[in-house]
């Protein structure tokens, strides 16, 4: 039960955040752009779950995101899965519970995911000089959201007796 709690929690969070993003988040633009709520959540998955589970969550998030977006289906799969894999790989060298780690990782994760999304969206004709400031602003916001997500989700996990930092070491 404990092993499944975090994945289920994250699936629920993905659904809720995506619905929020499609319905009212656009009313509160971050530096003129629509905030992206999923990349920090996938960072949490990458830092908390094992690689296959995190990748499956990345694919699920990508499928849901693309089904709501006008972009082609699967367009977000590479950005999300690549970012999840990258951060899952470097996880052992990071101190997961430090706020600085969460913030900086959130920024980098957001930048990689959003930049790849833009490249694969087929709108590269627009020009990097226009898009880059938007991506940078959104990445910073992803960093802030990461700290928030880690705090809230870790708190929820500990409330039900699951230690998210030690999920990997849990006996199967």
């Amino acid at each position: 039960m404990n092993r499944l709690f975090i994945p289920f929690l994250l699936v629920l969070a993905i659904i809720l955040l995506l619905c929020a993003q499609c319905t009212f988040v656009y009313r509160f633009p971050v530096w003129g752009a629509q905030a992206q709520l999923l990349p920090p959540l996938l960072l949490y998955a990458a830092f908390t779950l094992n690689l296959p589970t995190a990748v499956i969550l990345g694919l699920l998030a990508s499928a849901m995101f693309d089904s709501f977006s006008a972009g082609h289906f699967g367009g977000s799969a590479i950005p999300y899965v690549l970012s999840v894999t990258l951060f899952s790989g470097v996880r052992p060298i990071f101190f997961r519970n430090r706020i600085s780690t969460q913030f900086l990782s959130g920024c980098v994760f957001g930048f990689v995911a959003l930049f790849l999304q833009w490249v694969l969206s087929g709108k590269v004709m627009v020009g990097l000089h226009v898009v880059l400031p938007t991506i940078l602003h959104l990445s910073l916001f992803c960093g802030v959201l990461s700290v928030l997500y880690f705090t809230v989700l870790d708190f929820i996990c500990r409330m039900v007796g699951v230690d998210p930092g030690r999920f990997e070491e849990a006996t199967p």
Partner: protein
Amino acid sequence: MLLVLLVITNLQLPFAERVKDFLSDGFHPFLVFMSRVENTFSFLKDRMQGYSGLQAENTELKREISELSGRVANVSELERQNREFRAMLDFKKSTELKLVSAKIIGRDPSNWWNTLLVDRGKVDGIVRDMPVLTADGLVGKTIDVMDNSSRVLLIVDENCRVSGWIKDSGTAGIVEGNILAGGGGAQCRMTFVDRFAQVKTGARVFTSGLGGIFPKDLLIGSVSSVFAGDRNLKNTLYQEFNITPAVDLARIDEVFIGVGVKPVERVKAVPTPPSPNNKPGGH
């Protein structure tokens, strides 16, 4: 004692009055003081007694204020919706287009696309490339149609191109979205405009009807800035304008999808040729 009593009761009236006044005046400050003390105690007593009642009353009043504020906000929102619906109804009656109303149920989660999701789909007769509009003007066109919902590409998206013209000057061009869109500041630009055309800021841009998707004379927006003013026209093939959409795309909740032309209007628009049996005075 009896003697004193007899003297006092038999004092002459003026003298008795003076004594009475003297005593009255003498005691006046004490009376005032006592009266004030009494008032203070009485006030404190009332206050002590009414404090718990006042607290309850205060709580109740606060609750009522909060409830009434909520109602006022609700009424304002209903008024706004009512105005919008009235405008939409008037527009629906007055236009020659056959319209299907649709509610916006979602927005594109990505920053690179400007699309909406509406609650009308194939079962409502919606197909791809139908114009989407409000009473204020053009919103976009349908690009994906599912069974019960459709995706609408907004005019502020770079992939949406509309043939437009400015009625005042008769200038034609192509209106397309720009990437700086997304949220409230979304804009379009009008390109491929004759470089010698004289266009002023604020001029209104309408659909030209060319292209087969958008009907003629739907308001797209107004010219917000003209690029040609600060460029050497000799080096350009055409000029460009920024267009502010007529519809506030960040605030709309309901739209119309143009599914065709009203049958009655079509009959009016295309008169039937007179048949030999229907000639005036034929009977």
